[in-house]
Structure formats: structure tokens, C-alpha cells
């Protein structure tokens, strides 16, 4: 913002330095994310995993900030343009909040009132052979629905998940 347009050379050097800096920041953040990701694979503590996921989300937001602010040059635009971008984007807070809230509420409702839904989450399934998992045909989508295992609307005991689950 404090660039003087008269001193073209200095301005240029400054801009290049900024690009370099942001590139390094983005790379470092990505590498940290990856390290956290690898670390998470071996973890079993739910609380720790949640904390790492939170950290990753914060890093994601930071990366987004650097891309928008510097690569997309928003930080150097007129303040009013920045505001007209930021204000509408803040709608995402409630957009995300309400959707996820209702999403998890829907899961609780189904766990409470749909015994089959809950039961399913406890039945372990055989991991399929690698080869068997391949497509029989490119077009798996139009298998007649009735030909697949019938679980819904019929009695729950027939829910034997080892029959080719969820194609």
C-alpha cells in the first residue's frame, strides 16, 4: 500500500520479494500439513486426532488467506473492494455452521430411531479381495436396483452385509 509509483525499480523488487515470501510460506504450510497427516496415520487417540485436524484446518485457512491476499492481490486493492469481498464471504460462517449442525443432528436422530442404521455401524465387513473389487462392467450404475441386496423396507435380519456391499 505504501508503494511509491515513482520508484519503479524498488517497487518491482519489493513485489518479487513478496512473491518469493508467499511461495515459501505456502510450501512450508503444505509441508507441515503433510507431516501432520502422516503423523495422524499412526495415532489412535481421538482427542489428539481432533486437535491435529483442527490445526490442519487453521493451516488451510492461512493458505487461503495468503493466496487471496497476495497472489490474487486483494490486500493491495482499495479497502472498499476488500470489504465487498469479505462481507459476503462471512456468510459462510452460518452456512457451514447450520449445515454441519443439522448433519450431525440427523445422524443422532437416525441412531436413536432407526435401529437398522445403528446396527449397521457395528457390523464389521470382510475386506474384499483386491481383484474382486474391480468393476464387472464399466456401467455399474444401471444394475436393476431390485437385483441388489434388499435391506430396506424388508426385515432387518436379512441384512447380511457380506453380500457384495454397496455397489
Amino acid at each position, binding site marked *: 500500500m505504501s508503494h511509491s509509483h515513482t520508484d519503479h525499480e524498488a517497487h518491482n523488487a519489493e513485489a518479487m520479494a513478496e512473491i518469493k515470501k508467499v511461495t515459501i510460506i505456502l510450501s512450508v504450510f503444505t509441508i507441515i500439513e503433510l507431516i501432520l497427516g502422516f503423523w495422524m496415520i499412526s495415532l489412535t487417540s481421538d482427542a489428539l486426532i481432533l486437535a491435529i485436524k483442527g490445526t490442519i*484446518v487453521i493451516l*488451510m485457512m492461512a493458505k487461503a488467506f495468503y*493466496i487471496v491476499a497476495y*497472489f490474487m492481490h486483494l490486500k493491495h486493492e482499495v479497502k472498499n473492494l476488500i470489504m465487498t469481498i469479505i462481507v459476503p464471504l462471512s456468510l459462510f460462517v452460518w452456512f457451514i455452521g447450520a449445515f454441519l449442525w443439522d*448433519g*450431525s443432528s440427523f*445422524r443422532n436422530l437416525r441412531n436413536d430411531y432407526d435401529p437398522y442404521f445403528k446396527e449397521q455401524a457395528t457390523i464389521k465387513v470382510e475386506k474384499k479381495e483386491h481383484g474382486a473389487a474391480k*468393476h464387472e462392467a464399466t456401467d455399474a*450404475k444401471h444394475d436393476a436396483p431390485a437385483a441388489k441386496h434388499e435391506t430396506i423396507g424388508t426385515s432387518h435380519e436379512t441384512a447380511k452385509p457380506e453380500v457384495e456391499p*454397496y455397489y
Partner: protein
Amino acid sequence: MSTTTTASPNEAKLWGGGKSPFNSEYGKVMMWYFLMSDAFTFGAFLISYGTVRFSTNGWPNSNEVFKSFPFAPEGVNAPLVFVSIMTFILIISSVTMVLAVHAGKNMDKQGVVRNMILTIIGGIAFLSCQAWEWNHLFHEGAWWGSNPFLNADGTASSTNFTNFFFTITGFHGFHVFSGVVINIIMLIMTLMDKFEQRGHYLMIEKAGLYWHFVDLVWVFVFTIFYLL
């Protein structure tokens, strides 16, 4: 937006009509608001993904799903490696795009051409990686409406993991593809000296905004699908 009443004299001049309050031509203003609208499109997709994931009891472990690498032996266990390469390709192509825009501001045609070519190569490389990954997943049995993977806890998984994966990465890939097409058009226009004649490289700047947006979306897609 309605802050003009309390504006300083300088700002009042900016908003007084007869000129752009943002010091930018309307095309750039439109591009910004188009990108915002597109952010809501992607936002709606990703939030839908989150909603369905939150309303489901189990979910596949991304490290189990995305663990392959091109040319590596079958059954290699290399989670996150391939996607991190894709991420870096896109970041680097974003950097070259910034450099192209910067060169355009200095009316440096050679710099624009060089960096646009690098950006286009980056875009094509990213699309190739995505094509390989889709192909690989397809051969493992994954597609819209078909999910060969189990939940992380070993229970049966619904198809929505693959449904959302292919829809969202597909929509993002479509944006990358149109970005590459736009960049190629920009490159051709640069080579034809269109911008030299106009006296400015503002079109490159607008294409740049679009390209960075594509990179920005990937930051979210990458984190949400591969890390969380």
C-alpha cells in the same frame, strides 16, 4: 458499501461517480464477483460433503484409499505422496501465474509468454495427475454409485464417499481445464501482440484471478478429502 457518508475526502472522491470506486475496470470487478459466486458453488458442494459425512456413522480412511503411486508396484503403501505432488504442481503454477501478471504490469512480453507457458504446463500436469488417479480408482472399483472401500472401523461404507469425491474433484478438474483453455487463449493473444497494442495486460490479470481461484479451491479440496 454504504459507508460513504462518513468517508474521508479522498474516499468521497472515489465514490463520487464518474469513475470506478475500486480503481479498476469493470471487467476485474465482475471477475471478482463471479469468483465469489463460484466460491458459493464450491462451498455448497463441500458443505454438502461435510453434512453427509456428519450424518453418517462411519467414513473411509483417506490414507487407505489414496495410497497408490504411478508406476509403483501393486499394493504399495504411499499415502499422501501422490496428492502432495499434485498440490505442489498447482502451487507452482500459481506462482508462475503471479509472475506472468507481474511481467504484464511491467509490459514485459517475454516474461508473460515464458510464465504463461509454464502455467499452462503446470495445469496440464495437474490434469494428467488427476486423470491417472481417477483411472486408478476406477480400476479399483470406485465410481459414482460404487464404493469398494470400507469404513475406517471396518464396517460397510455408503457410496457417498466416492460420489462426492468424483463430483467435487471432477467439478474442480473442469475448472482447471477451463483455466488452461483460458490461459492458452491469453498466451495466443500475447503472442499476437494484442495486449501490446492495447497498452495493458489487464486480461492476463483477470485470467490470473481465475487461475488463483482454482488453486484456492484445491487448497480446500485437498485438505478436506485427503487430510481430514
